[in-house]
C-alpha cells in the first residue's frame, strides 16, 4: 500500500509501476474495424500520448484497456498480468485509474463525494457497516476523505470540495474527473481528452498538472488528446491511430515529421492542430 501513503508533492519514488502492453488488439463493431492489430507499450513513468483523427479508435482502445470492451483479438498486459476482459471493476485495484472523454461525474454530488468514489477499491464496508456507522468505517472514511481532500488540493479544487459538481464551470469539472481517477492511487493513469473543451489557459494548466502529477507520483500516464500543442509539449512518446490502425509510434519529434501522420492530419495547417 505504498500508493496510499505517497502523496502528490511528496516526491516519493516508486518502483512498482509496471509497463502496460497493448498486444495486437483488434476490435470490431459489426462492420466497423475500430481497432486493427494495435500494439504499443506504455513504459513505466512516461507520459504516453495516443492521438488520431475523430473516430480513429482512441476511446475504444481505452475501453479495451479498462475492460469495458472485449477485444476481438489480442490482449492487454500489465507487467506480468493479463488484464481481465469485461471485469472493469477489477482494474482499479490493479492500479489503473481513468478519466472520461465526456464528464462522467455525479452532477448532484459534491466534488469531494465524487473524488471519494475513486477510493472504492481501497475501502471496505457494505450497507450495514456503513449504515450503523461502525467506528472502523467512520475512521476509514475520515482517513480516505483526508487523502481525497489532498488530491483535490493538488488539482486546485480546495475551494469547491463542498460544491455540487453540476454547479462548477466546465474547466473545473474536467479537473474533478482527473482528481477522481487519481483517487484510485493508480500506477497507470488513463486520461481521455482531459483538455477537450478547455480554453487556452485551462489547457496549459492541465498540461502542467499532468507533468506535475507524473513527477510527484512517478506513475505512467496514457493520454488521449486532440490538442497537438499539449501532446507534443508533454509526451515522452506518441502513438498515432488512424481508422483503427497504428500508423506511427515514437518520440514526438519523429512522429510529427512522419509522412503518414502528416497525411492523416492533412488540412490541419502549419500549427499542427488537428481538425475537431
Amino acid at each position: 500500500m505504498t500508493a496510499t501513503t505517497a502523496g502528490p508533492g511528496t516526491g516519493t519514488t516508486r518502483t512498482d509501476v509496471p509497463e502496460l502492453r497493448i498486444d495486437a488488439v483488434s476490435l470490431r463493431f459489426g462492420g466497423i474495424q475500430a481497432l486493427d492489430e494495435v500494439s504499443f507499450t506504455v513504459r513505466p513513468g512516461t507520459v504516453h500520448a495516443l492521438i488520431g483523427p475523430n473516430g480513429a479508435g482512441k476511446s475504444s482502445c481505452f475501453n479495451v484497456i479498462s475492460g469495458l470492451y472485449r477485444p476481438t483479438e489480442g490482449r492487454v498486459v500489465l507487467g506480468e498480468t493479463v488484464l481481465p476482459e469485461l471485469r472493469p471493476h477489477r482494474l482499479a485495484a490493479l492500479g489503473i485509474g481513468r478519466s472520461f472523454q465526456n464528464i462522467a461525474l455525479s452532477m448532484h454530488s459534491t466534488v469531494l463525494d465524487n473524488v471519494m468514489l475513486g477510493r472504492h477499491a481501497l475501502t471496505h464496508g457494505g450497507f450495514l457497516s456503513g449504515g450503523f456507522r461502525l467506528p472502523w468505517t467512520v475512521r476509514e472514511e475520515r482517513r480516505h476523505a483526508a487523502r481525497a481532500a489532498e488530491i483535490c488540493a493538488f488539482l486546485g479544487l480546495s475551494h469547491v470540495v463542498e460544491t455540487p459538481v453540476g454547479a462548477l464551470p466546465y474547466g473545473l469539472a474536467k479537473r474533478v474527473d482527473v482528481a477522481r481517477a487519481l483517487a484510485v492511487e493508480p500506477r497507470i493513469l488513463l486520461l481521455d481528452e482531459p483538455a477537450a473543451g478547455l480554453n487556452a489557459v485551462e489547457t496549459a494548466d492541465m498540461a502542467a498538472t499532468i507533468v506535475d502529477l507524473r513527477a510527484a507520483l512517478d506513475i505512467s500516464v496514457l493520454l488521449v488528446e486532440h490538442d497537438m500543442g499539449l501532446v507534443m509539449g508533454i509526451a515522452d512518446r506518441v502513438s498515432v491511430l488512424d481508422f483503427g490502425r497504428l500508423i506511427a509510434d515514437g518520440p514526438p519529434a519523429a512522429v510529427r515529421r512522419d509522412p503518414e501522420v502528416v497525411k492523416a492530419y492533412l488540412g490541419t495547417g502549419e500549427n499542427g492542430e488537428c481538425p475537431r
Partner: protein
Amino acid sequence: MSETALATPEFSAAGRPAGRLRRRNWPAIIAWAVVLLILVLLPLYLPPGLLSAGQYVMVGAVGAIGLTLVFGQAGQLSLAHAFFLLVGGTAYSVLAGETTQAGAERIVGFGWPPLLALIGAVVITALFGLAFAPVAGRLKGIYLGIASLALVYIGFYLGRALPALTGGASSGRNPEPFSLFGFPFTNEGDIALFGVPLRQPERLWYLFLVVLVIGYLLAAGAMRGRVGRAWRAVRDHEAAAAAMGVNVLRAKAVAFAVSAAYAGLAGVLLVLWYGLLKPDESEFGNYGLNTSIAFLAMVLIGGLGSIPGAVAGALIVWGSQQILTLFAADLGLGTALSGFSPTVISLYVYGLAVIAVVLFEPGGLAAIGRNTVAALRGRRRSDMDSSGASGRRSAPPGKDGK
C-alpha cells in the same frame, strides 16, 4: 445515462459529507430532537383514528425509504414493492405463528419469538430481492419497472394459491401479535405514560416509531458513505462506476435486496397494524399495483433519493388516504360523491401532487425543504442549487463504454 427520466434524481441530504469536514450541525440536531419529542408525545393526545393513521404513515415511510434507495439513489426503477410487502407480511405470519387447522386447511406456523420472526421476515424478503437481481442487471429504466411489476402479479397468484402460508384470500390469517422479551404489544398489562394508559395502539405507535428511526438512520448512514457513493455512481454513469472499482451488477443486486428488505419490514408492520394478513382478492388491493404506484408517488413527491423526502411523501400519500377515510362523513364525501371511495379520492390527491412536483419542483419536497433551510440561514445555497440543476446538464451524454 440516468435511468430516472421521470424527474431529476435528487442529491439527498444523506449524500452530503456533513460532519466529515464540518463540525456538528446543532440547529439540525435540535430540530430533529424536537420532531422526535413531538412524535413521542403525540400518541398521548391523538384520538384513536388519527393514532391509527399515524401508524399507517410510519409503515408507508419505512417502505418508501426502501424505494427511494433503490430508485433514487441506485437508479433502478422497481414496481415490485407491493410484492415484497406481501412476502414480508407472510414470512412474519408463518415464522411467528402456530400451526393451526382452519376447516380443511392446515395453516403452517413455526412459532418463533416475534422479534426473531421479524428479522427472519426481513432477511427472507431481502433474499427474494436478491433473486430478482439477474433481471435487474439486464434491464434498465421503464423496462426494469415493467419486469418488476410481474412480481406483483406472481404475488397476487401465490397469495391465493398458498393458503397454508397466507391463510387464503377469503379469510387470511391472524399474525402473532408482536412482543419483545415478553413485553406484549397488545392491551395486556397496565403501563402508563404521564397518566395515559399505554394500550395496543400506543404501544404499536412506539414500536413503529423505533423501527422507522432505525431504518431511517441506517439508510442515511449508508448513503452518506461508500455504498451510497457507489449506488449514485451506478445511477449516473455505470462505466465510470466500474472504472472506479464498483462491481455494477453486485451494487444493483444489493440495492434491490436492501430495498426489498425495507419493503418486507413495512409488510411486517402492515400485518401488525391490520391485525390480519390477507392476500388480495382482486388486482386492486393491499398488495396490488396500486400500492406499488402509491410508493412511487411517495418517493417522487418527497424528491427522488431523499430519505426525509420519502417520509414526507408517505405522510402525504398514505396520510391523505387515511384522513379522507376518517373524515369522509364530515366532509360529506360519502353522499356528494357517491361511488368515489376515499381511497379513490386520495388517488386523485396524490396524483395531482405528483404532477405538481413534476411541473414545478422536480426535486420534490426535499428540494423545497433544502431551499427553505438555505433561505432561513441566509446562505446562497439556493442559487447554487438552481445553477446546479441547469448548469452542465447540457453536456453531451457520455458515449464511452455504452
